[in-house]
């Protein structure tokens, strides 16, 4: 069902948790749908210095969350903003068709966190 990369990120998720002194937090999804993704950030000089996730959801939801933190870290927020859900899925060598929409919202969560950072710092 899942690619090896998905299973790797699912079983050994990177960057789980909550960034201490986060200056941006985003959350998408809801319990009815069975997926909630929460991303917290530490941004310095427009660069994402630290990023962590907490996710309630299926294997795909956890793996995409983990992957998005790996992709985002060290990027400028402008670079991070062009990261798409599609790109996250591709970085995982793809997701099952049924999971492409429902559980692939990690980039959205990242964008929400960046928006939150911008809202706080403007």
């Amino acid at each position, binding site marked *: 069902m899942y690619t090896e990369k998905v299973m790797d990120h699912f079983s050994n998720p990177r960057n789980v948790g909550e960034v201490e002194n986060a200056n941006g937090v985003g959350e998408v999804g809801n319990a009815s749908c*069975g997926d909630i993704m929460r991303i917290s950030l530490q941004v310095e000089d427009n660069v994402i210095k630290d990023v962590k996730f907490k996710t309630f959801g299926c294997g795909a939801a956890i793996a995409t969350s983990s992957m998005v933190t790996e992709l985002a870290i060290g990027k400028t927020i402008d670079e991070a903003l062009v990261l798409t859900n599609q790109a996250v899925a591709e970085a995982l060598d793809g997701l099952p068709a049924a999971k492409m929409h429902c559980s692939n919202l990690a980039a959205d969560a990242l964008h929400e966190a960046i928006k939150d950072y911008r809202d706080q710092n403007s």
Partner: protein
Amino acid sequence: MEKIYMDNNATTAVKPAVLEAMLPYFCEQFGNPSSVHWAGQMVGGAIDTAREQVAKLLNCSAAEVIFLSCGSEGDNHAIKGTAEALKEKGNHIITTTVEHPAVLETCEALEKDGFEVTYLKVDQDGMLDLAELEAAITDKTILISVMWANNETGNIYPIDEIGQIAKKHKVRFHTDAVQAVGKVPVDVRKANVDMAVISGHKIGAPKGIGAMYLRRGTRISRFMHGGHQERFRRAGTHNVPGIVGLGLACELALENMDKDYTYVRNLRDKLEQGILSNIPDVKLNGHPNADLRLPNTLNVSFDFIEGESLLLFFDMKGIAASSGSACSSGSLEPSHVMGAMGVDVVLAHSSTRFSLSAENTESEVDFVLEELPKIVQRLRDMSPLYQRADPTPLSCDECRMVQKACV
């Protein structure tokens, strides 16, 4: 890694004796039982025997057994066939909100054709109010369809009492006995049932074979039109090996039910008590009185986490179980059974079913009890809902739309 299979309500392994009984009917005794010649005639007896074996388990006569391809087909046939045959008499059907999709979606399809369906609610334990059932009967009611036991919770419904009500009001009574049969006694005569459906792959026979008990004299329209097989009741060349397998599985089930399910019940009770006492924020789904549940079924919700990821972590330890989460079932919503019982949506997403068989061992249960708390904790530590201050975000129309699009 040791494999621990605790998903027997989803499907069972074929019993070795059953496979062995089937084997001659693939390449050697391969005839079409409708044929006059040796190849056909040499298999006819095997079908008769199997019909007797099924009849004995259900306590009906062999002539009341119809072989078909699966439980879903039986439910479709029973309900649509009744609706069509009795449509002059009435257009009202009574069923429950916790039926298998093979019943629920069939009823929903009939609603589009002008039938009216009452979906009886269940209480928080998943049980029916029989007074409500009886009150729902009108002079247009042509069918009551209530499952013998629920696949997700294992809840056993009071089929004997419902049979009495149906008899009193002269309404036909169908029961989906797919999960009950072989695990608890299913006596269609005693229960006053008119139609009962079973499926091979839930009791150690192969996939692709099922049977329906149809009480003598019950008028029903065809579902599968075509040849004259099964006395014009089900077209299609007989699945001889499947029928032979189902027959033997029924015989074995009858023979071993007491012994096997006393054993299974002990294992299940141990698992149940172990989970409920060792893991916090756990909810039992189904009736708290274990006597009112199938002896092999345990359904629990682990708060704050989602079922599919739980199953995947189980899987990494070789443990096979199932979940009511939408993500794991391929449906749009978490289990309609959990919904009907009023289980909170987060808990519904984490509902996990362990369904045991006599193949399971005590050391398997011990292993599960050892691994489970660690897995649950690990997922909780990852969850934004665990030890959360603000309220859980519940509904989101946009997301729901996205979700619908993904099927």
